[in-house]
């Protein structure tokens, strides 16, 4: 994407986000305890500031003389994925799946599966290492958090399943 297009897109997105924010701020009901500025005063001002900055960036991109197309630095490196954004989307799906399954399978089991799945997705193919990673990660993190730091990780549905 060339620089001009990036500015234009940033400007458009900025205007959209700030408009929604200003609208949301207008819906906040003032409290009896509110001061002269009001509950929504500062957020609304920041919303307008961002709207103005985004509009200015957008207009600046329109007024820019046609520049030589500048190729973005984020072009795919040789040997990397041909579709880096799709690859990132796949990773996000795995992360979201992890967040969804923790309440069911518990942290220790889920994190083991998660580590193996992500390592496989990132290119690891050695089945033995993957299995070891899956088996070790959960207990190590459990020992660190539950035992050493006394931060209890979610147990999932296991207590119900085994009738505890």
């Amino acid at each position, binding site marked *: 994407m060339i620089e001009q297009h990036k500015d234009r897109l940033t400007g458009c997105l900025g205007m959209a986000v700030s408009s929604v924010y200003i609208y949301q701020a207008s819906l906040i*009901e003032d409290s009896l305890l509110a001061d002269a500025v009001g509950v929504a005063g500062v957020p609304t001002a920041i*919303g307008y500031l961002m709207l103005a900055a985004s509009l200015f*960036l957008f207009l600046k991109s329109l007024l820019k003389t046609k520049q030589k197309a500048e190729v973005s630095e*984020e072009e795919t490196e040789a040997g990397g994925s041909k579709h880096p954004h799709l690859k990132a989307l796949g*990773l*996000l799906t795995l*992360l979201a799946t992890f*967040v969804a399954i923790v309440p069911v399978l518990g942290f220790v089991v889920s994190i083991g599966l998660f580590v193996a799945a992500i390592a496989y997705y*990132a290119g690891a193919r050695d089945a033995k290492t993957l299995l070891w990673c899956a088996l070790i990660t959960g207990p190590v993190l459990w020992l*660190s958090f539950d035992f050493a730091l006394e931060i209890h990780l979610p147990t999932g549905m296991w207590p119900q399943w085994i009738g505890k």
Partner: protein
Amino acid sequence: MDSFLLALSNLSSGWVILSAFAGVLWGIFGGALPGISPSIAMALLLPFTVGMEATNALVLLASVYVGAEYGGSIPAILIRTPGTNSASATVIDGNEMAKRGQAGEALGISLMSGLYGGLFGLLVLVLCTESLAQVALAFTPAAYFSLGILGLSVIAGLSGGSLLRGLIAACMGLMIAFIGSDPVSGVQRFTLGSEDLLDGVKPILVMVGLFAVTEMLVQIGEPPWARGGSSSTRLKLPNWAMSKRLFKPQAIGAVIGTVEGVTPGAGGTVAAFMAYTEAKRWSKHPEEFGKGSPEGVAAPESANNVVTATALVPLLSLGIPGSNSAAILLGGFLIHGLQPGPMLFQKAPEVVYGLYGGLFIANIAMLLIGLVILSPCMWLVNRPKPYLIAFILALVMSGVYAIHQSMFDCGLVLLVGILGYGMRLLKLPVLPLVLGMVLGYMVESNYRRSLLISGGDHSIFVTDTVSAILLGLSAILSAYTLWKEIAERRKSVK
């Protein structure tokens, strides 16, 4: 003089030394885990201090603080994940150095800058506590507002050449900071009806999402050998030439860390960012900042370690805990029947001077423990990339969960990761967003409190002397940065 000798005698006390080493080790472990803040690491040890002798207990807690503030820089440099809020400025150049295969140098600079900063802060604490306490007392809400504005004035220096983009990013940060309960009336704002957002969004969640998750989303699409850095796992301490070069940024960090540390509520994060931008401003090589400048590591690390000692100034002299960590330390004092404040120096000088001695040992312990553990840490991040990505994400998810013990936070971090990925595609700088987020609450709450005090009269911000000085300083710094940017742009056009 007797008290000073008492402090010196603590340097050879076995229990004090053990407390300092144990505290620093625990602190480094906690600080290196994203999500475990210095205050959490301290709070976890608080119950164990009940049966301890007062000086040993306080040395243990203060050493955790020292260790945790340093520990946050290790994952910041090695895996682009700040372990603590104040390590987020270290990410910028520290991780760039690691990507260039200079992880050993970056960790060495961070360790030595942290040591110098910690010792300088201790010196300030010992010599100037009483006079600096007056500075803390001079801070009214108007002055706090202006201090926040001074913090925001460095945005121009963090915008990567485009002030407009930096401004948009800073506004985004401020918008996130306004989520949650209103600081004056308690009314819910932008929570979309979610109870999980009532308390607002913790800055560390945004930082972990923006730095760690975004980085992993980018790296997954890169070839296995990309950004691997060097396979060397040798820690490299700065040599004489490098030490000379780093003196100026370390001094800048020390001065800024002192001012921010003695000001209750300002904290190490703002100090680190301000030190970074000021070091860039005064550097002979400003063009290297953001691309792996050693000075860009030294300044924030020096600043946030100075704060570990100077943050104790308002606590010891006035009994005001200026940060969460200081509040936990206050708890440690109260458990042992001690009330920090002006009388503490008369009533229990052996504890105060014992704490000074313990802090000195803690800084030495930080150096020694750092020398031992940093090479294994580098070895760990040189493992094959697929496993490294998986383990970083597992660590991030566990650490994020630990903050509130809530899976909602994990989902939130993913959303911030997507935001960071989008920002990277659009070349929007993330640092102004982080700064806006950190300072948003401080700026808004003190702005409105000031107006409540003045009955809506805005002149309070210029009639208050400290506020006027800080606002003037913000104006000068902003104007200077803008002028420099415009001059550089004209130069490049020519």
